[in-house]
């Protein structure tokens, strides 16, 4: 059913928006007369924006989807949404790639005897499942349902489904289960939930292992808050970890911990704080004597920190008015994981709960999510032939279970294995029946990523072939199995549920804004002293891990690996190493020197029962005895299960390192990790000395100053706020139809990114990220040398590339000091249906043409058109570039410099503003604000 009818049934709107049939498109050789008038208010050839929710990771950020020619062509964060507030990470941008992915499952598939998959009809699939369900009941086997984190009405339907058919609904499976944290909160605070950490209110943030910027619970939210915190001179962020992560790279201070010693550190902190007057009164007497004794020297020894650093931690904690400690991520992924989580929870209770730093009323919805222990149970039951039909929906347990568990083999013992997915993965490879799921942009639905926030899903694209929404699938199955179902289809079920749950006004808001906030009551949090006492009594801190240790680190590009198959995310390089395609392992400079390794040399690391061989990448600033193994580099990223918490073990300790002598060609996109003293990112401004400001006087020049009439488009990038997450890069790729070229072109240096993140390391191993894009120089070196005027300067300050005029001499690229011009070495074609992922406002370039950032000229054009209708100029904030729009931290600001009230004017006149390679006299329109 279409949107108009749906809304009519809800009694909300009459004659409102509806999806129309195919429209005409520029470039087609024909014009089409539609049957009925097109969607209300949608003039052919113009855009419309519809709210939705991103489903690429469990954070479920709010989206605004741009629809052109009846297809979603761009995703943007919803500026009002409480989770992401307008930002959208690179995976969110790339979820559009998933929608048009050529390998998306299209029909139900059945595995034949020889292992190959055969397409079957839904009727056949459903019949087979129903029969298998019945058979296993007769055989006395259990039917089970295993899914990834599910929320909203779908969860209710699954509950009904499992009840009606007597299927056991297993604990949900998430590779990042945060099980240790939830266990601790449940034990000590009676809230087995993941609270929302109020980073925005803290004045001191200490994170231990928790990768806020990469994958920790709600990355876009925490990235925005943490970066604001770090940018504020009065607030401070310290990150402690054993390896080198993007989160650590952006914190104010990064302290290197010995792996496995987080517990010792937290214990010492707890000791130190409870002995101070500020916290002594809060700390219960009963627990006073239960803290195991520890001292500064022993802690320094165990953690690898210096005594001064430890003392600084304590003194900052004491001075802060609203200190916040966040523990998680890899910090709980080793044998000391449970003590780390418990001590972390105790510390949080002590220092953060007094000022409501943990918000359990907005807890992340992980209550049904289990841990690897549940998977182990399932494995046991499978091995004992107790499982009949096993449904596996939207999760990949085969990849994320330890090899020694033998899940693959155990799965074979279920009578029927049914996988529900949109793309093939390790788990669907083991399934007998694979049912294709529709994408979040193709179906109706709702999500509740955190308590009190409801997100809307609505169909904005036609489902791929025969893919169905999970809701429809379950209802059909119910109908088939029992002869009746609670609703005719998923839309009807949703309506029923919504009409019961929400008022008319609320529903209207949900439809219009794409989200709804239902403030939840604040639970009162009390420390369960009895359990705390027991925990402290039984506290056993084991020794730190034996070094050399490999840290199996999550990736900002693929989350837990689920986004790996989106080629766009392999095209965009990892921010720290600038490696795009392929696998690698990061080693320290000292290790590389000792073993005489260069980038690309293969190194084998092994223990008694585990080994991995990867090409090496030298990571400046990485501790000597640590290696970082990105999760995606391993076929089996989970090396074991912590029996106490059920968390995945994310370390391999006591390694033997042996170079194998092989050389791999790694697609490392950075020519050099160092600035070589060129001042591309100059030293921070000394705020105290006023005279330090280097004001260049007006440049003497032959040429007349360019005159700008109404607009002078300018951009400012705040390097303090840029965290290198590359969301801007993904946004640019999709907005501008930038070709995704693949590994072999990357090896030749032919990546096509118009905007790139350049990481520059200093001699201490600290990194700063420089987003580099066309600077739209007022005196552009490229414009003077193009023989055919394909590159020229327009009266609004843009350096415009006229694609059709370009003959491809490449002189412009040679003359560009920033090297931001990209040449089309080949004719790039996207395999269908990815060729539909195309912004029709931007031409697709052919081979032999030069392309580069245009400051999203197409968006400027749309804004000016709109403004002209109202007979006015474009206002500040009305138009922004794709990169600026997507940035979770708001590091990029775009606007009209002639508008003296605008944000861009203020930023470019800030004390921190400078321009890259200004001494060349190019007069760029992109100003950078130096990091502090």
């Amino acid at each position, binding site marked *: 059913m279409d949107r108009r009818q749906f809304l009519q049934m809800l009694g909300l709107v009459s004659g409102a928006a509806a999806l129309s049939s195919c429209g005409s498109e520029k470039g087609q050789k024909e014009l089409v007369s539609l049957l009925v008038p097109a969607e209300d208010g949608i003039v052919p050839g113009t855009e419309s924006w519809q709210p939705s929710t991103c489903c690429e990771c469990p954070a479920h950020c709010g989206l605004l989807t741009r629809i052109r020619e009846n297809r979603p062509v761009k995703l943007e964060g919803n500026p009002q949404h409480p989770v992401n507030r307008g930002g959208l990470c690179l995976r969110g941008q790339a979820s559009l790639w998933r929608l048009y992915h050529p390998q998306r499952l299209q029909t139900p598939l059945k595995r034949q005897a020889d292992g190959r998959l055969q397409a079957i009809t839904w009727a056949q699939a459903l019949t087979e499942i129903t029969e298998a369900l019945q058979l296993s009941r007769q055989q006395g086997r259990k039917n089970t349902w295993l899914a990834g984190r599910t929320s909203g009405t779908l969860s209710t339907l699954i509950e009904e489904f499992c009840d009606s058919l007597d299927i056991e609904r297993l604990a949900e499976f998430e590779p990042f289960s945060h099980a240790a944290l939830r266990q601790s909160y449940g034990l000590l605070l009676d809230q087995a939930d993941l609270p929302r950490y109020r980073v925005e209110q803290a004045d001191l943030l200490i994170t231990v292992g928790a990768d806020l910027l990469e994958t920790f619970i709600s990355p876009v939210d925490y990235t925005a808050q943490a970066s604001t915190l770090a940018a504020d001179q009065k607030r401070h962020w310290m990150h402690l970890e054993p390896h080198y992560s993007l989160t650590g790279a952006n914190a104010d201070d990064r302290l290197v911990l010995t792996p496995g010693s987080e517990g010792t550190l937290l214990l010492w902190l707890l000791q130190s704080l409870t002995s101070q007057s500020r916290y002594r009164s809060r700390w219960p007497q009963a627990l006073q004597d239960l803290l195991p004794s520890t001292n500064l020297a022993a802690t320094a020894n165990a953690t690898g920190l210096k005594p001064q650093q430890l003392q600084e931690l304590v003194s900052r904690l004491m001075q802060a008015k609203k200190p916040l400690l966040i523990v998680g991520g890899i910090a709980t992924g080793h044998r000391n994981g449970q003590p780390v989580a418990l001590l972390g929870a105790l510390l949080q209770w002590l220092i953060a709960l007094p000022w409501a730093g943990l918000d359990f009323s907005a807890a992340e919805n992980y209550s049904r999510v289990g841990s690897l222990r549940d998977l182990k149970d399932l494995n046991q039951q499978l091995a004992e032939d107790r499982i009949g039909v096993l449904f596996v929906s939207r999760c990949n347990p085969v990849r994320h279970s330890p090899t020694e568990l033998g899940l693959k083999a155990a799965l074979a013992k279920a009578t029927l294995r049914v996988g529900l997915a949109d793309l093939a993965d390790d788990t669907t490879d083991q399934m007998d029946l694979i049912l294709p799921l529709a994408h979040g942009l193709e179906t109706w639905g709702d999500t509740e990523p955190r308590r009190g926030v409801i997100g809307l899903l609505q169909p904005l694209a036609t489902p791929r072939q025969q893919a169905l929404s999970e809701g429809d699938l379950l209802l059909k199955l119910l109908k088939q199995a029992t002869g009746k179902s609670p609703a005719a289809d998923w839309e009807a079920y949703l309506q029923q549920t919504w009409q019961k749950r929400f008022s008319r006004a609320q529903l209207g808001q949900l439809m219009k804004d794409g989200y709804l906030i239902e403030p939840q009551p604040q639970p009162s949090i009390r420390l369960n002293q009895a359990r705390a006492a027991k925990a402290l009594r039984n506290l056993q801190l084991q020794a730190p891990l034996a070094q050399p240790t490999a840290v199996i680190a999550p990736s900002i590009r693929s989350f837990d690996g689920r986004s790996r198959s989106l080629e766009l995310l392999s095209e965009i390089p990892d921010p720290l190493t600038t490696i795009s395609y392929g696998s690698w392992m990061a080693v320290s400079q000292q290790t590389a020197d000792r073993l005489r390794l260069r980038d690309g040399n293969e190194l084998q690391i092994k223990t008694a029962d585990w080994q991995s061989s990867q090409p090496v990448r030298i990571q400046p600033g990485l501790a000597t005895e640590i290696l970082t193994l990105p999760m995606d580099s391993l076929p089996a990223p989970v090396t074991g299960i912590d029996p106490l918490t059920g968390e995945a073990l994310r370390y391999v300790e006591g390694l033997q390192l042996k170079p194998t002598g092989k050389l791999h060609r790694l697609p490392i996109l950075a020519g050099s990790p160092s600035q*070589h003293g060129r001042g*591309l990112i100059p030293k921070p401004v000394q705020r105290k000395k006023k005279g330090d400001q280097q004001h260049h006087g007006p440049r003497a020049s032959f040429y007349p100053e360019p005159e700008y009439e109404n607009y002078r488009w300018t951009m400012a990038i705040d390097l303090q706020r840029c965290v290198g997450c590359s969301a801007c890069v993904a946004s640019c790729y999709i907005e501008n139809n930038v070709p995704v070229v693949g590994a072999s072109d990357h090896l030749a240096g032919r990546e096509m990114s118009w905007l790139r993140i350049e990481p520059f390391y200093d001699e201490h191993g600290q990194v700063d990220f420089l987003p580099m894009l066309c600077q739209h120089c007022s005196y552009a070196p490229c414009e003077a040398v193009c023989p055919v*005027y394909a590159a020229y300067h327009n009266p609004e300050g843009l350096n415009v590339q006229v694609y059709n005029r370009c003959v491809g001499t490449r002189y412009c690229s*040679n003359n560009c000091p920033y090297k931001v011009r990209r040449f089309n*070495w080949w004719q790039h074609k996207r395999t269908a249906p990815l060729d539909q992922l195309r912004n029709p406002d931007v031409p697709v370039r052919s081979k032999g043409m030069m392309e580069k950032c245009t400051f999203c000229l197409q968006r400027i054009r749309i804004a000016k058109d709109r403004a002209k209708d109202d007979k006015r100029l474009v206002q500040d904030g009305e138009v922004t570039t794709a990169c600026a729009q997507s940035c979770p931290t708001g590091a990029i600001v775009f606007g009209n410099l002639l508008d003296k009230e605008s944000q861009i004017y203020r930023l470019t006149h800030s004390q921190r503003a400078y321009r890259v390679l200004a001494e060349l006299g190019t007069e760029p329109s992109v100003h950078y604000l130096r990091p502090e």
Partner: protein
Amino acid sequence: MQNTSSTEQIEQDVLAAMSRPSRCYLACIFLAGLVFLGGMALWSRQIALGMGVAGISHPVGWGVYITDFVFWVGIAHSGTLISAVLYIFRARFRTSFNRAAEAMTIFALMVAGLFPLIHLGRVWLAYFLFPYPNQRQLWVNFRSPLVWDVFAVSTYMLVSLVFFFVGLVPDLAIVARRRPGFIGKIYRLASLGWVGNSQQWRHYTKLYFFLAAFATPLVASVHSIVSWDFAVSIVPGWHTTIFAPYFVAGAILSGTAMVITLVIPMRRLLRLETYIPISHIESIAKILLLTSLIVGFAYVVEQGLAFYSGNLYEMEQFRFRALGDYRLLFWIMVSCNAILPLTLFVGRLRRNLAYLFILSLLVNVGMWLERFVIVVTSLARDFDPYAWGNYTPSFTEIGITAGSFGLFFLLFLLFIKILPVLSITELKER
């Protein structure tokens, strides 16, 4: 001095070169033609698939093709030097080579003119580069050195062709006289009715002198303009005022080397030893030595100025050239262009034809490498260290380069058979 009956001898000897082609000659033609066609096939493939078949990339957007372009234009200059400049200076020794050198100029320019087309990403729109009246109401960008190249090289080509042809006219009449039949008629037509009376001779001398004077400044200007393709940009290692004289000197150096490479075998195979005495070749070798000294001086100045300037980018660029990934090519270039030719101070070596031949080959290798080093190393290490990257020529580029040599030698071989390789009239005068 020869006696009068030897004018007949001169004609006979020179025209003997144009007799029936030997089997060896046909084999050479075949080989050269094959290599040329191979290059053309590779170029067609490049047009069909895109520039990706070449090894160029970001940041090195110019590679072997531009190197070839500058190389061939450079070679052309020395031909004009010998025929025009030396004519004005009344250097006697020029008569031995001036025809061959002029021909070399024409052919080198023909080959060079292909490369701006070969390196274009969208060669089917190459007409955009020409300022012709069009409905788009667009002119070309006259500020761009590439457009200056268009004018410079085409002017040079035109003037060289006219100069060449004018010089040929009396010789064509001689050939026509000696060749019967249809072929002779073509030569007669080409000689424009030359009978050799005193009036014609007067006009001829005036015109020839005028054209020589016209072509002389082109020797300096054309390669200066080609050098400004680099010097006018901001790339460190390119942006320097020394380029114009440096390139012109380099052009003469590689041109004289190519003349020596062509003339020494030609002299032997066509049995023209009496007409091309060793002393004349020695004079060319002296020009080679002179220009090699200039080029060597330029190397020292470049390196010295880079460090004297204190400019971070220049210093790093020249450090990279001498000690970086392309250092082997750099040092071969310096040895072949600046150090080895110093041996020509020794008179015995100057007069040793075998030694001169080998040296000329090495100088040409060195000069090709010089352009390669300048183009590639500057682009490989410029301002933003993130963008640094190296370049390796691909099979297509090497194949097309070989094809260009094939074309050049094919044309020269054809020239030997079709036109008199020495200026008969000037020899007679002598």
